[in-house]
């Protein structure tokens, strides 16, 4: 029975992940007349804040391998990554019409300029550039970011969202915290018993929440967790790896499955980093202003990522800690082609791993990659060598 439950939840998750035309969002809007739907690009956007404004946050990850990019290619040179071109393709085709606005977080120059293109192409929609702070002093970056988030609230109010209500915002934060805690449980299960919940399955379940309110997503994750714990599952003699570099443009699910079939248990990754960016709950006691609580959580609990300045911290330390804490035996760097943050970060992370004697392998993908044989051979050789000799 638990296998059936598990399968049906996963099938629903898959449907939600493939919902390029945002049918779910349209259904939500039909149920919530006047409610705003606000898209956001990766990596992290303040979903709790958007929910707290009574709006539905909608994670946008481009067209993946489901969309023929035609118009989108006429807007980008060949050396630009794939996610902006498929996103523009979807928008020009009207598939994103259900969105009342879009948030473009400051993660790289491509997403930043995509926000500018949005302003020009879709003048009637909100195009909001979210300037994530790179100064992590609460009195400097924190103050700036709080004002920045309040500006977003005002923009949403101007488009019909109800006036800021602190209690409603706090309730949304509590919902987000609950979701974050449930995802942490999911991650814990993957680490302890990766055969019970494969990375490709967890990926779909987490990503499906991109078009849901946090509360609904938590319920779905909770049901999946319960089913996963009790479903019959067979252990594999796999090598335990962490996947790094896929935090923005997402690989096709088939690529994740390919890694698994090549003998890798992906016990941690930065896929869907936005849902995991905050390492712990948003502290509601941090300030009387719940918006400031979100800002401070990003400052104090933001995970190390290529889009975040490391300041005085040691580059690669967070990855090494992750490898050690999760008992991983190796790292797979999987970055999207032309992804500046990931690819500029990679040599530093590789150097840190080398110092610690942690084996790694490196591959690149695009969201619409369709050939996996080479990746399968590479990942297979990597997992074999780690299994046999403890090194790549």
């Amino acid at each position, binding site marked *: 029975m638990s296998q059936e439950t598990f399968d049906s939840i996963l099938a629903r998750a898959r449907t939600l992940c493939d919902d390029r035309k945002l049918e779910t969002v349209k259904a939500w809007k039909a149920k919530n007349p006047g409610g705003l739907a606000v898209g956001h690009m990766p990596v992290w956007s303040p979903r709790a804040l958007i929910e707290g404004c009574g709006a539905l946050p909608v994670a946008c990850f481009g067209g993946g391998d489901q969309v*023929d990019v*035609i*118009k989108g*290619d*006429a*807007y*980008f*040179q060949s*050396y*630009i990554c794939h996610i*902006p071109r498929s996103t523009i393709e979807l928008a020009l085709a009207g598939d994103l019409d259900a969105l009342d606005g879009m948030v473009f977080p*400051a*993660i*790289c*120059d*491509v997403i*930043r*300029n*995509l*926000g*500018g*293109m949005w*302003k*020009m*192409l879709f003048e009637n929609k909100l*195009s909001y*550039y979210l*300037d994530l*702070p*790179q*100064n992590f*002093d609460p*009195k*400097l*970056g924190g*103050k*700036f970011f709080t*004002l*920045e988030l309040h500006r977003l609230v005002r923009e949403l109010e101007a488009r019909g969202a109800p006036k800021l209500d602190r209690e409603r915002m706090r309730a949304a934060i509590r919902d987000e915290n609950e979701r974050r805690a449930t995802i942490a449980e999911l991650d814990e299960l993957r680490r302890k018993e990766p055969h019970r919940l494969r990375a490709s399955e967890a990926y779909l379940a987490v990503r499906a929440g991109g078009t849901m309110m946090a509360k609904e997503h938590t319920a779905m994750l909770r049901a999946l967790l319960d089913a996963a714990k009790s479903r019959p599952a067979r252990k594999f003699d796999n090598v335990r790896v962490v996947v790094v570099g896929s935090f923005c443009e997402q690989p096709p699910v088939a690529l994740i499955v390919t890694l698994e079939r090549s003998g890798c248990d992906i016990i941690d990754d930065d896929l869907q980093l936005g849902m995991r960016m905050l390492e712990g709950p948003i502290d509601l006691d941090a300030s009387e202003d719940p918006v400031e609580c979100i800002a401070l959580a990003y400052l104090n609990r933001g995970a190390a990522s*290529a*889009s975040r*300045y*490391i*300041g005085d911290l040691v*580059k690669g330390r967070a990855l090494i800690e992750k490898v050690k804490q999760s008992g991983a035996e190796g790292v797979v760097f999987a970055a999207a*082609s*032309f*992804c*500046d*943050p990931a*690819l*500029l*970060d*990679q*040599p*530093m992370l*590789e*150097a840190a791993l080398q110092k610690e004697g942690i084996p790694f392998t490196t591959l690149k993908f695009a969201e619409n990659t369709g050939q996996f044989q080479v990746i399968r051979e590479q990942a297979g050789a990597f997992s074999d060598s780690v299994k046999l000799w403890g090194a790549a």
Partner: protein
Amino acid sequence: MNTSSEKVTEKTEKRDDGDRDESQRRQKAMIGDHFDKLARAKEDGKKVVYTFVPGNLTELLGALDLLPVLPEINALQSGMRGRSGKYIAEAEKAGHSEDVCTYVKCDLGMLKSGNIGPTGQKLPPPDVLLLSYTGCFTFLKWFELLKQEYDCPVVMLHVPYQPDGEITDEMRKYVVDQLEREVIPALEKVAGKKLDMNELSRRLELSAKAEEDLVWVWESARNTPSPIDGYFGGVYYTGPIFSSFRGTDDATDYYKLLRGEIEGRIARGEGPTTPDGPMGKEKFRLVVEGPPNWTNFFDFWRMFSREGAVVVASTYTRVGGLYDRGFRHDPKKPLETLADYCLGCYTNLGLPTRVNLLEHYVKTYKADGFLINSVKSCNSFSVGQLLMLRELEKRTGVPGGFIESDLVDPRYFGKANIENRVQSYLQMLEARMSRGGDLGKATSGFAGILESAAAQAEGLVTLGRKS
């Protein structure tokens, strides 16, 4: 491996000093003197700051007696001297992706090859890395990478982006607060002295004087013929003000001298100076968006100058400040003015503002066409340029051209291909100008071709599906 005594072999042809204008000779001497100071920095007890061009805090560094090194300038100089290919290969061998910014790889390769600067002298290691994070995400990663190589502190100045082309009070305050609480104290620590605000103001006043003359130089291109080339020639004009000399008497004198030379050219009805000497008859007036290619800089320039095409305005020459839109350093508000300067650099502006600026240039400078040189290395510039092209054609009726190259990776400069495109574009302009037609009736710039290609591609796919 290079040594400090190694002679720099220049790939590009050298011109006798007699062929140069006095301002060029002056600038060359200033640069030589600066690199001499850098070479002697350790023995002279001077502290060295590595920092970036956009949003640089030159007056502040000068007031603290700190010597700046600008890695982008070193990279472009390496490109012009035919060294960048080797440096990039060095970085790629060390694991850097072929997909990423070649300025970064060129700089890292140069570092691994002995850190020999453009004048052939060894550059000193930094005492501090001043990360002015303005308008380019790669800057952030660049200094994270350099931090791995040098045992020195990094000081971060996060400059907010202007998505709506407006500097808000919040943005300004954020930058000023960072300057006051973090940047200045950290630099004072390195310098071993307190900042003298009077000295900073004195330097800012000098900056404003030089800026006034630079704006006059830019606006001289409204004349026909234009006495300057605002892109290829323009990169020389920006040299002192974008780099280490803003806020010095040297820079102020340089711009005064330059202005005098250009006044002379206007009086004589002369066009700009080119690599082949004075330019012949002005046939085309262009506006250019995007940085130039440095590995074949003079070849690239000649593709235009030999056809009688002069660039009357460009956006690359505004990456270090939009003075011609009214900004001047204000000695009365030293920190606020530094903040506004950092916030106002061209690449820190949202796409709609960039399009407005280009439209202004096309109209004000009476351009016959505009050209985008889209460089692979720079997403900050390049993402959105194809949309900018369409929008500009729509707003101005002037046809656009589109070229792809790179900053300093010689593998991405296909000379024949680029020359072919430039010539085709200029021929199209000529035909159009001879008819006196407008874009709607005549053919088309590059945006029209793109629209049509996209429509055809869509048709093909539709046909494919139907069949």
